[in-house]
């Protein structure tokens, strides 16, 4: 996989004071691969994401997309190298409509932002990509509703939709099914599957059904370090992994982040 891998993370280490949250983690993800990251709470999964997306400083290590080093760049520039992410707790612009939320992501890099007397809503309505994305994540019916009025599951997919608006090469998804009701999980699965068709996806997930249904490969993170790596079935059969999971709680599903 190493030749075709788009995302190369090597030797990443993050510490908060004396606590080493992520310790020498390396991972490679192929161009259309969906890699799940699993592990108990506090294993450093979200911190690992924050390190990739430049939201916490790295002590050491390198993050590359298509051979370009990301660690030297500010957080707001990473989209140019093809990185986008969605969050565990949806990070959306609550006071703006769904359409505006999606459109902002497009407008940021377009010449539209230099036109101070043009109505943004008029521009947003002209964007076909906004409507395509909105439809593909299943929010077409709510496109002109304020984002803060959406259900939790809809906010989760809007968050993913905003990431997709960046046309990423690598998409980081932090627990896409977290807090989503069983009936709505299939909808999330469809969105994630569709996303893998345009980007490599690295997905933190606690829900094992989702991991088994969607992922090509799995990395197990325990205490900030990689414990096991492989296909979903290989990882599930791994003795260390079973011990860690049996020792904590067989059903690793948390309702709150």
């Amino acid at each position, binding site marked *: 996989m190493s030749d075709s891998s788009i995302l190369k993370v090597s030797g990443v280490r993050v510490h908060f004071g004396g606590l080493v949250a992520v310790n020498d983690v390396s991972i490679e993800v192929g161009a259309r691969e969906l890699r799940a990251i699993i592990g108990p709470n506090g294993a450093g999964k979200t911190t690992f994401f924050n390190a990739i997306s430049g939201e916490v400083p790295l002590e050491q290590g390198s993050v590359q997309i298509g051979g370009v080093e990301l660690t030297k760049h500010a957080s707001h520039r990473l989209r140019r190298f093809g990185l986008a992410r969605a969050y565990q707790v949806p990070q959306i*612009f609550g006071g703006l409509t769904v359409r505006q939320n999606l459109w902002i992501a497009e407008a*940021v890099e377009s010449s*539209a932002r230099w*036109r101070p007397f043009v109505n943004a809503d008029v*521009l*947003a309505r002209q964007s076909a*990509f906004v409507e395509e994305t909105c439809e593909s994540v*299943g929010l077409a019916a709510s496109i*002109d509703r304020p984002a803060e009025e959406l259900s939790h599951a809809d906010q989760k997919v809007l968050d993913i939709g905003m990431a997709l608006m960046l046309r990423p090469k690598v998409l980081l998804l932090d627990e896409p099914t977290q807090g989503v009701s069983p009936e709505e999980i299939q909808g999330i699965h469809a969105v994630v599957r569709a996303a893998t068709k345009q980007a490599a996806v690295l997905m933190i997930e606690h829900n094992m059904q989702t991991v088994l249904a969607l992922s090509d490969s799995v990395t197990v993170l325990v205490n900030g370090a990689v414990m096991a790596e492989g296909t979903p079935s290989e990882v599930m059969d791994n003795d260390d992994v079973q011990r860690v999971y049996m020792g904590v709680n067989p059903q690793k599903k948390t309702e709150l982040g």
Partner: protein
Amino acid sequence: MSPISVPPTPSATGALQTPNSTDDLQTRHPSGRSGGGRHTSRLLFGKAAWVRLTVVAAMLLAGPLAPPGVRTIILVTLIYGLYAMAYDLLLGYSNQPSLGQGLFFGLGMYGVALPIVDHGVNVAAALLAAALAGGIAALVIGLVAVRLANAFHVIFTALFAAIAYMIANTLTPITGGSGGRTITLPPLKLGPWEVSLYGPYATYLLVAVVVAFVYLLLDRLVASPVGKIWTAIRENPERAANIGIHVYRYRLAAFVLSGLLTAVAGGLYAVMLRFASSEFFSFTWSVLPFVWVLVGGIGTIIGPLLGAVIFALFQFYVAQLWTHYLLILGVALLVLLRWSPKGVVGVWRSFRARRSASGKKDVR
């Protein structure tokens, strides 16, 4: 109002593999650039044109129609309104709760007063000088201030205003200290005409035209892409950075524009009073815009104007009934914000939403 998400259909998910066209991030315009040009020329019209027309008409006509005493009150209110609108760019649009805007207001007053008194410059040029001084000062202070998180932003800006107040009090040969400097206004030159600013309507119209123009300008600006980017920063700065917004740069733009317009407000106030003093750098003048914006409705342009009007009513009418009118205002403000975080505008919107709830859904 479906509470359950619609799962994407298989055909819909197919649409996600959009080809990477070359105009990736360009917004599509069926009619090219001319599509935007159509809107550029229309400051007055567009959505909710009646609101804009009413506000501008009220600004221009209220003074001349009112008796002279009331006209002065309206004049003061207009300048408060300009100051309030400028402040909402910070508090309401880019989430920068500055408590040091008095610095720019005072700078604007002296920016007008000193060129006129010491160099005999005409009023229009003096107003430009004031705007420039405010903009440059905001740029310098903003370079640090916009990078500070809320509480530190408040302290930092308040500190700078306090320093400016002390300097203005000390440099009495230039500023006149709290005793101030009196201005004799030269006539305003408009092409071949000369208008004396001592006529009954001249100062009023000068102020009203500037404030109305700024109102239309800001009303457009906050609805534009830049305005939406500011709103995004207000709603969620981390996410804004994550989708590629250079948060500091946009905050700085808001800070500079706000400082510049605040200086214009100060300049107009000096023109109205024919006077400038160090007192206008004081903390009071940094807190007032905060109150106006909260009363009227944070995150709107019309709200700060309304807030200024309501405050002026208290200041000039309720104050006559009871000297401690600020106590009433304070309690009223608390009650208002308890029920409507968006102030008077919020009350109006929820009233309209309730009325149209039975009819078609109006999302705004």
